[in-house]
């Protein structure tokens, strides 16, 4: 039976992306956790968060972090789908659109939270 190479090509770049974002996420998560929960009072309040989120540096860091995690997480979901479910063209395109839409929506939602924020 002939091998079906599947739709499209590549996978290398996405695979690499998954590793690179993974590596970056590791310290990012640590930092995130330490900043929000350790060394300060544990309980998260508006003031505490707002004050930090308002600075331009933090805005940048947060957006970067947001992109990484959405890329990594949603590509992760997509790769799970690729493993078994997204094989027939129609289903594949539908699922792909859903994943991309969700990703974009989350990104936009994050952006509108972070960007206009003033303490």
């Amino acid at each position, binding site marked *: 039976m002939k091998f079906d190479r599947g739709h499209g090509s590549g996978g290398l770049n996405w695979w690499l992306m998954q*590793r690179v974002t*993974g590596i970056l996420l590791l310290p990012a*998560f640590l930092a995130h956790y330490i900043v929000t929960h350790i060394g300060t009072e*544990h309980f998260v309040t*508006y*003031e505490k968060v707002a004050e930090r989120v308002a600075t331009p540096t933090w805005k940048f860091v947060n957006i970067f972090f947001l992109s990484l*995690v959405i890329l990594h*997480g949603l590509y992760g979901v997509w790769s799970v789908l690729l493993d078994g479910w997204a094989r027939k063209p129609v289903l594949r395109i539908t699922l792909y659109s859903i994943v991309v839409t969700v990703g974009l929506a989350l990104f936009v939602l994050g952006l509108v939270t972070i960007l206009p*924020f003033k303490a």
Partner: protein
Amino acid sequence: MAYRWHAGYIAWLLNRITGLAITFYLAVHIWVMHHLAKGKESFDGIMEFIQSPVTLIFEVLLIGAVLYHGINGARIMIIEFFGGSKHQKSLFVGTLVVAGVLFFWTAFAALSHISTPH
């Protein structure tokens, strides 16, 4: 379909479950944080709900998930880039140990706050 339980298989299953769980959490988290934009009342309101003891336990589990997933991610990369495939079993044990220690440490820190008045 299942195959005999062993390190690599369990590691992968856990990685997949935690990865999907965190992604789901991420979506919720972004939605929650979105309330920041709506102002203090809205945010503190939802925070009130979220930081109840029950959800806190949930959140602690999530920390565990992230820890496992992240450290196992490192394990995967050791296997992939540093010839770790011959030692994958000990690497898995290492992953569990490191993730476990960090988990108990953070869980203890977080849970101790439940009893602290605010």
